[in-house]
């Protein structure tokens, strides 16, 4: 039996299904603490794991994940030299990419059961999964341009893999969020369900996929899910290039100092 109780996430294996629950207040922001625990999960995936499916879900009522931990990012900017910032952000991104690539390529069938905000890095985590099940409260967004950045956790190459380029450009360039109905209509979401039902439905998927020959499933998944390694590497470079500019620090400061009336609105 595999189980882990962490500060930002926990997992439990029941039969052949591993369920990972994100539970880091306020809204599963992905920073160094979450990365460390995701790396533990990656270690599990690299081991001889007797499992067929992996589900991600969130116990935080407001959503799956609001994205990168911008407060931690801003704090690190204050305490590091320019050179340290450059090296630090690249190292962080390379670690995140390693974990996300492992999730993307695992032999397990992966399902993200999402609700509420699925923003930025949280959206990018969901996109590593084979399927997204969304309840009707879910909203998807790449808000990074609002900060003078682009998504840095692999989101654009993965979204391009799944959607028409027109909508990718819309989401990236406007920074707007789309609801679950729209996400379902464009094929981003596999199943749209009632509020609170995403995890139940994801468990149903996990049971279903476990019925089939494991080798055939692994081969089928590799066949239909190309990993855009070159673009993922270029995304890291682009993010690092944009990151070390005053406009980014100013945007982060504005977010951190906001009274939270409108920071998640464009």
């Amino acid at each position, binding site marked *: 039996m595999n189980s882990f109780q962490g500060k930002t996430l926990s997992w439990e294996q029941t039969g052949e299904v591993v369920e990972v629950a994100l539970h880091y207040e306020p*809204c599963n922001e992905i920073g160094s603490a979450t990365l460390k625990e995701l790396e533990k999960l990656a270690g599990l995936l690299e081991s001889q794991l007797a499992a067929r499916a992996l589900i991600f879900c969130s116990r935080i009522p*407001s*959503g799956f994940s*609001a994205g990168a931990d911008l407060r931690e990012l801003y704090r690190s900017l204050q305490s590091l030299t320019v050179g340290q910032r450059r090296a630090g952000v690249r190292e962080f991104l390379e670690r995140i990419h390693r974990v996300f690539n492992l999730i993307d390529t695992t032999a397990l069938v992966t399902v993200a059961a999402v609700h*509420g*905000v699925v923003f930025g890095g949280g959206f990018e985590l969901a996109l590593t999964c084979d399927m997204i099940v969304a309840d*009707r*409260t879910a*909203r998807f967004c790449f808000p990074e341009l609002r900060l003078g950045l682009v998504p840095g956790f692999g989101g654009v190459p993965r979204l391009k893999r799944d959607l028409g380029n027109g909508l990718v450009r819309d989401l990236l360039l*406007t*920074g*707007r*969020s*789309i*609801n*679950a*109905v*729209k996400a379902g209509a464009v094929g981003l979401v596999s199943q749209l369900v009632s509020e609170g039902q995403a995890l139940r439905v994801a468990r149903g998927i996990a049971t279903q996929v476990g019925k089939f020959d494991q080798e055939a499933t692994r081969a089928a998944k590799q066949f239909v899910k190309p990993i855009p390694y070159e673009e993922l590497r270029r995304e890291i470079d682009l993010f690092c290039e944009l990151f070390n500019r005053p406009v980014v620090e100013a945007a982060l400061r504005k977010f951190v100092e906001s009274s*939270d*009336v*409108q*920071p*998640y*609105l*464009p």
Partner: protein
Amino acid sequence: MSSLDRTLEQLLVLASDHFQVPAGTLNPDDDFFKKLGINSLQTLDLLTKLETHFNVEIPDYELQGVSDFRTLAERIHSRL
């Protein structure tokens, strides 16, 4: 009643229902952030409900600078 007024009326009912405040306590010119004490995440939640109810898609950047129900109704109505 004009169709915009109908939209506004429905919006006020939906908002009071969603945030569980007594019907009739919300007025068209109220600042919904202050009146309801909501933050941006809760506003996005309301936006989802409104999009579903009115069967429209409202880019959330159109909510920039919008803080009263009357203007929000105009934004919704423009998409009907």
